[in-house]
């Protein structure tokens, strides 16, 4: 019989708070390196289709009559639309990334469960997932800007600020929906209701395709709670150079508050769900 032995101390240690978030991002980056082709195709195709349909097709209908000029401030419809589309696309992909993939991480593939059985905490996992969503939106946003440029929809360097505003908008939306998804137990109707009653109305009535002052008076308070409207105001103001300081700071503050609230909820709800 061999001498009884006891294993040497483990080589593992718990990463720092930020390091743990980074490891979760790294996991998703690994996945992306394997699967980027499919993502790349859709991130080029989506802006292409939207710009063709609304910027070029619908834009020709809008024309450049006095009515249109009053709404767009005199710039071509495509130029007026493009920065808002950028924000809308970020908000939309944020909604997709934060629903079924999150449920899968808890329930189907259970990769969050695997992460939590190591030294990572629920908060690190949730915030890591959110950070990755932000990075991915930044990547597809850059592609979006390039496609806009090809169509001649870029008015000037302000579009870079529009991109930042779009990513911030997407992050605010993603944080809130990710937090919600962490409470969803099965596919049921939760996500389809979310898309039908929240995401699609938000997409249509946040001033992307027409100015919100064209809406009836009583609808406007609904617009004010839409993160996409706040993001669109910054993105468009920056791209066209029409922004003014105080309203812009107001929009920025709303988005930052939403993101902070969403981030805290994500950290708490991931922790709760992973420790039953």
């Amino acid at each position, binding site marked *: 019989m061999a001498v009884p032995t006891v294993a040497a101390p483990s080589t593992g240690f718990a990463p720092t708070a930020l390091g743990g978030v980074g490891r979760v991002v790294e996991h998703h980056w690994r996945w992306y390196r394997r699967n980027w082709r499919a993502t790349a195709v859709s991130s080029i195709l989506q802006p292409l289709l939207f710009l063709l349909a609304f910027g070029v097709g619908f834009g020709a209908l809008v024309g450049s009559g006095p009515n249109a000029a009053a709404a767009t401030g005199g710039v071509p419809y495509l130029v007026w639309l493009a920065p808002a589309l950028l924000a809308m696309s970020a908000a939309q992909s944020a909604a997709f990334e934060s629903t079924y993939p999150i449920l899968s991480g808890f329930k189907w593939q259970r990769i969050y469960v695997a992460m939590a059985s190591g030294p990572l905490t629920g908060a690190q996992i949730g915030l890591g997932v959110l950070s990755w969503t932000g990075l991915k939106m930044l990547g597809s946003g850059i592609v979006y800007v390039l496609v806009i440029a090809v169509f001649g929809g870029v008015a000037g360097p302000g579009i870079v600020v529009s991109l930042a505003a779009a990513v911030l908008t997407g992050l605010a939306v993603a944080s809130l929906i990710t937090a919600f998804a962490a409470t969803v137990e099965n596919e049921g109707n939760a996500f389809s209701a979310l898309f039908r009653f929240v995401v699609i109305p938000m997409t249509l009535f946040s001033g992307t395709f027409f100015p919100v002052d064209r809406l009836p008076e009583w609808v406007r308070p609904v617009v004010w709670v839409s993160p996409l409207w706040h993001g669109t105001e910054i993105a468009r103001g920056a791209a066209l150079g029409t922004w003014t300081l105080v309203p812009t700071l107001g929009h920025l503050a709303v988005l930052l508050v939403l993101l902070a609230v969403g981030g805290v909820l994500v950290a708490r709800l991931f922790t709760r769900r992973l*420790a039953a």
Partner: protein
Amino acid sequence: MIAARPVGAPGYGLVVSDALVQARGLRKSFGAVEAVRGIDVDVAPGEVFGFLGPNGAGKSSTMRMIACVSPRTGGTLSVLGMDPGADGPRIRARIGVVPQLDNLDAELSVRENLEIYGRYFGLPRRHVREKATELLEFAQLTERAGDTVEELSGGMKRRLTIARSLVNDPELLLLDEPTTGLDPQARHLLWDRLYRLKREGVTQIVTTHYMDEAEQLCDRLVVMDGGVIAAEGSPAELISRYSTREVLELRFDPERRPGAAALERHADRVEELPDRFLLYTADGERTQGDVVGAGFVPLSSLVRRSSLEDVFLRLTGRTLVD
């Protein structure tokens, strides 16, 4: 593969007599349901410790508390000398966990699953690359390293999950129903791997509802039922304490089935199951002769050694796997 040193070797820091896991009055409730109702457990370094019991006995709840993913409702618990409530991440960094349900990333390759998991434990990239190579060898998955997990069989996924749990060279390995759903060949291969780990000094805690698994793997085990510990000891101790050496199993034609009382004078104890009688006796062959000599005509009879299944039946009045 796992660096091991003899107990008491120079530079060895751990006090070997200290329990790696110690629980006193440990409880877990889910709302009104009490899953674990006050258990005491000590797991010594280097041993393979088992929780044996039917589904719903509280094994997995206990395991999740030891794994520091489920907060305890009451009692005290220390794992590697730390409190799971306060030091969860630090404890989890030094243990390995094989969950009941595989939670590999199906869209990553076999090798990537090992490497990325190692990164959670703060290990440098180079270290996890080398460790992954070593673990692929250990799990006999070297040829499948580049395949995605989706393409693997159930047994291979299980081996990969075990390999993954070793990426941080854990001091304590927790295995929750490690072979449920595997075919016999895959189970034996897994048992072999776990036995190698034991020889390397890795302390293991296993839950199972298979008595043969518990007998194969465990140095010491507790039988759990209804959230409490019904008995504790080595498999051999439990069998000699709660059962006889041999068991005679008799099946009768339902039309001509005798009552249990009629068989009782031929054995130390008789258990009546829906489809058969179990006669507990020191010498099965002899009891079989006595029964037939007394005029009983069983359809079939079988003499076997007592197992943990019999211990469980004695302790709880129920069979382990229904």
